């Protein structure tokens, strides 16, 4: 991650800087999913519910209450966490696991989208436009470098969180719940509490990603906030890169972004076509490297050790 820090100085072209930003953005969203889905094994199909709530919190708070966009960041994280807390508490209380949990989260995201589509607070179907006031104090940088560094910091925070999970009691208990919930209970782990905590962290990071999205594009509507594309990105990124690892989401985001770019270069901007590529890639990954791309590095090392 540190290597990436001076990237804006090296990259003269706006195109590549945008590419780098979108990669980090994918990595942040993917890492958010990874905390709950990768380490905790609670695979959500509706992370848009948390992302969108964070995004709307950031947009609505600055538009309607005039709160400074920087201050909106932590508030968006809190909102994302709150949404995840509600969805998580309901799902985990009733013991939803596996595909049932995935379906429940998907349904929640859809409900949120329909609500955002119909109430005036969120601008309904017209969406919300953030007025252009370029100033670093206003979280609207004149160049892309400022966005890059801000996002770099958020992604680094997310990765630090993943690293902490790998080296703490909370993480050990979270992984234990993923591997075998009954055995974990017998050893004194409260699965409900652990899963809920993971959901809160995951929701907070998703909300943060949502707030960044709003500042970067200055526009939000129900489909962008709560659409399936966000949920799919959030889960594809870590699955491709390697779920339950610190580096997986970053590698997955880079792969996905590169593929996306390639797809639009080859086929033009046909809407929805990128999803076809996503699907094909996911099938290939699950068939040949089910533990994600990071496991390739491990395999090579093992082979060398054996040779």
């Amino acid at each position, binding site marked *: 991650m540190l290597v990436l820090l001076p990237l804006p100085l090296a990259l003269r072209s706006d195109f590549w800087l945008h590419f780098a930003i979108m990669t980090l953005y994918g990595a942040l969203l993917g890492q958010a999913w990874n905390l709950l889905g990768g380490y905790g094994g609670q695979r959500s199909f509706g992370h848009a519910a948390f992302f969108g709530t964070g995004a709307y919190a950031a947009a609505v708070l600055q538009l309607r209450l005039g709160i400074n966009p920087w201050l909106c960041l932590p508030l968006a994280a809190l909102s994302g966490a709150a949404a995840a807390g509600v969805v998580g508490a309901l799902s985990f209380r009733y013991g939803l696991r596996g595909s049932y949990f995935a379906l429940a989260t998907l349904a929640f995201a859809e409900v949120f989208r329909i609500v955002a589509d119909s109430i005036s607070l969120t601008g309904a179907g017209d969406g919300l436009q953030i007025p252009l006031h370029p100033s670093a104090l206003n979280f609207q940088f004149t160049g892309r470098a400022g966005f890059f560094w801000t996002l770099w910091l958020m992604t680094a925070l997310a990765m630090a969180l993943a690293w902490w999970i790998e*080296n*703490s*009691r909370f993480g050990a*208990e979270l992984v234990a719940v993923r591997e075998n919930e009954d*055995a974990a*209970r*017998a050893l*004194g*782990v*409260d699965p409900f509490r652990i899963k809920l905590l993971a959901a809160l962290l995951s929701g907070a990071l998703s909300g943060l990603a949502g707030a960044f999205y709003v500042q970067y594009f200055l526009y939000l509507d129900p489909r962008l906030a709560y659409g399936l594309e966000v949920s799919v990105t959030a889960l594809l990124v870590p699955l491709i890169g390697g779920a339950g690892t610190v580096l997986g989401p970053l590698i997955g985001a880079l792969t996905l972004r590169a593929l996306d770019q390639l797809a639009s270069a080859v086929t033009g901007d046909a809407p929805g076509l990128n999803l076809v590529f996503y699907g094909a890639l996911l099938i290939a990954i699950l068939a040949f490297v089910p533990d994600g791309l990071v496991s390739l590095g491990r395999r090579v090392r093992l082979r060398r050790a054996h040779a």
Partner: protein
Amino acid sequence: MLEIAGVSKRFGGLLAVDAASLTAERGAITGLIGPNGAGKTTLFAIIAGFLEPDQGSIRFEGEEIVGIPPHRLARRGLVRTFQIMQPFQGLTVRENIAVGCHLRLPNRAAALAGAEAVARRVGMEALLDQPAATLTIAGRKRLELARALATDPKLLLLDEVMAGLTPTEIAELLPVIEAIRAGGTTILMIEHVMAAVMSLAEQVYVLSDGRVIAAGPPADIVADPLVIEAYLGHGAAERLQRQQMGEVAGA
């Protein structure tokens, strides 16, 4: 340490546990035996908080514990193992045991170090870095034991830790369990391997069709006609006795 009084559990039309009562004395090893399907594992699940009994009372260290969830009981020092081993498949032996250690040790490094100490107690130190998924049956049984032991329990419920082991492996495990008791942990064990029950337990309860049909020192239990009938069928005790008499008369 543990007093169970009149505990019953019904699954639909099946009365799995029928007014069972038993006591596990502090510092002792108490055995629980019985034919397959007698309700032993169900009773364990009830004691450890995984199932709620329909009736009856369970007192642990003098306090009623019915309705308390498993993780809270584990914190209070009541920990079970599983007859069908439930390792954390994707983790190494060390990481598996460390989950148990974390119950008392918040620090990650301390828990991992604690896992090594526990592994030595059960003779698994050579396997510490192996993934749990690659362990043999005997290895998994030991891992069940090690993980439970890592929580530093006051009362350990062992569900058939000897089942499926070779005689050599059983002989190796007996002193391990004896040492756990010597370390101050009370043990209640379900066991089919009679040699293990005979050499370890002070007191044995026999469960058949959900009911406690006999209780006493192991030597008395194996001679009890009711127990023999529970295992070998109605009239078996009488037949056995006649056979023995016949042999004596013939000799």
